[in-house]
């Protein structure tokens, strides 16, 4: 396992609130090889964004706290890493793309200045060279008139264009991994496809690994090689993309896939779009056994008694359900 680019084991991140500790991430395993695209899917509140931000320690601590686990980055554990070390890793080794392009850029600096700031943080180059690098990055992400637009402010760009700027910024120091946290959620549907295409293109040209956080199964199908499904702060299933869509093992994954609107079927078969009944359990005091049991049609007494372990039932396929073999 030492050869992996990123290897997270048993990660627990809890948040202190007035009502008690929220178990936002509660024992997550996740690993990623160089050049690979891994997608993490789940509803809002499943802990996927917290997991992603914890890798770069971008969550607020306090109230957040890493309770347990390790985050091995090229073999080095980042959990005990000092702030100076984290700063070296941020952007230079791991780039981050945020969900909200409209608010993720600072309105008072030009986009060029903001990209150049990143570059100059990690490389000893002149201001002028950094601005040239910024223009170069903008043209790489297909922003027209890049050499002129580096001097524009964020409010002069549309949402999709701003997300391109964010991508350019994340890529500006040639990181080995890009973490994209719901990069298309805030955008129009037509723009979403363009941004995903751009991410795929960048990956092909630059060869970095991508960790794509999303709640949309459609996005997963288009970009990822491997998928991790999270529910209530835990991983419930892990599989290669085709296998997951072919034969989902966990009842929650099955529900997720059934809830994708399918144009081809809708017209002919009158199939109803299925929503998963019920809501995510409170993470203040999560249930003892399987966290999905309350919403699961297959749940039996044993499900509620003890948490189901994440078992590897075929090569590359893991699932946290004791009845997986029966129901899949």
């Amino acid at each position, binding site marked *: 396992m030492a050869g992996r680019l990123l290897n997270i084991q048993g990660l627990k991140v809890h948040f202190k609130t007035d009502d008690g500790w929220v178990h936002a991430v509660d024992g997550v395993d996740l690993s990623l090889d160089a050049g690979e695209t891994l997608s993490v899917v789940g509803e809002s509140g499943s802990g996927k964004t917290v997991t992603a931000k914890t890798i*770069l320690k*971008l969550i607020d601590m306090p109230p957040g706290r890493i309770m347990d686990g390790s985050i091995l980055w090229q073999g080095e554990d980042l959990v005990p890493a000092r*702030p100076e070390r*984290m*700063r*070296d*890793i*941020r*952007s*230079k080794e791991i*780039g*981050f793309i*945020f969900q*909200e392009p409209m*608010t*993720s*850029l*600072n*309105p*008072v600096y*030009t986009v060029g200045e903001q990209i150049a*700031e*990143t570059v100059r*943080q*990690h490389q000893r180059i002149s201001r002028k060279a950094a601005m040239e690098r910024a223009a170069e990055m903008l043209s790489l992400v297909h922003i027209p008139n890049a050499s002129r637009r580096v001097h524009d*402010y964020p*409010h*002069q760009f549309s949402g999709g264009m701003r997300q391109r700027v*964010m991508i350019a*910024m994340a890529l500006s120091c040639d990181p080995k991994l890009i973490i994209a946290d719901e990069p298309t959620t805030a955008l129009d549907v037509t723009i979403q496809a363009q941004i995903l295409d751009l991410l795929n293109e960048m990956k092909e040209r630059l060869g970095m690994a991508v960790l794509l956080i999303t709640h949309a199964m459609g996005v997963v199908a288009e970009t990822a090689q491997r998928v991790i499904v999270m529910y209530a702060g835990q991983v419930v299933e892990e599989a290669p993309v085709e296998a997951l869509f072919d034969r989902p093992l966990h009842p929650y994954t099955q529900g997720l896939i059934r809830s994708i609107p399918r144009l081809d079927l809708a017209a002919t078969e009158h199939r109803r779009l299925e929503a998963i009944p019920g809501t995510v359990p409170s993470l203040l005091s999560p249930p003892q056994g399987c966290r999905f049991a309350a919403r699961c049609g297959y749940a039996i007494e044993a499900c509620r008694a003890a948490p189901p372990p994440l078992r590897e039932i075929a090569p590359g396929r893991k699932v946290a359900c004791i009845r997986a073999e029966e129901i899949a």
Partner: protein
Amino acid sequence: MAQYLVRRLLIAIPSLLGISVILFTVLALAPGDPFEELATNPAIPPEVRANLRASLGLDDPVHIRYFAWLTSMLRGEWGFSFVSRIPVDDLILQRLPVTIAVIGASQLVALAIALPVGVYAATRPYSIFDQIANTLAFVGFSLPTFFTGLLFILFFSIYLDWLPFVFRTDIEATGWNWWWQQLRQSIMPIMVLGLFQGAAWTRFVRSAVLDVIRLDHVTTARAKGIPERAVTLRHVVRNAMIPVVTLVALQMPAVFGGAIVTEQIFRVPGIGSLLISAILANDTPVIMAVTFVIAALVVFFNLLADVIYGWLDPRISYR
């Protein structure tokens, strides 16, 4: 930017006119004759008085009187002080530099307190430092300047006997000694005003920084690997200054109010103490002119704040 400036200027002119209308209305509605002084002076014969009234246009209809008054105000023809017989504009020009100096210095003091304290408190919300700073800020702007002024005199002049409590214009010293004496007598008025404003601004800065610190672009800056100090300065404080400028501009009337009180306590010969002595002496032309000058200065500072605002926020010039 130029366009934005012109627009702000065009907005400032109606404000100034509005203020002049309010001032004139107050004067016009005032019962009695503002020139009673002349009326009761037996040395002036009635026909001279009537001529004077006619020449001042006191018997014309109200709107004509307003325009006549406004043009003479704008042309700097502010008349003569009833008391000292000196042209009012000379009197004000004599006094204005002192007031501007005291206000300017005290605003620097306020800034020097509010910026570091507000930012430090906001970056550690609900820490001991934050709670103490917040409580002191509340106490600071709940202490009226006239009371802090007296407390300062009581402590520094009477108890410790360190500082003089009467401002003198006739210091008999030269060179460095003159500056030293000047500093000694200015320090209390400046601190009284500065501490009061500093307390109010600390709260503005703190809440503005708190608002900015949770914005997404700050997380972006951290994700870029920028050190926390630089994140705070470049991406938090820089942005938080935008709302602070507006709030500070709104404080300008209060700043001048505080200056009047402070000048009166320490007998600083500025336009504030000029106003009070003019009121106590029923010196109408001086009262009107000083009020108008202070109003114009407030409008001017608001305009200045608009310029700074436009300079701080690149979005503004495109709106």
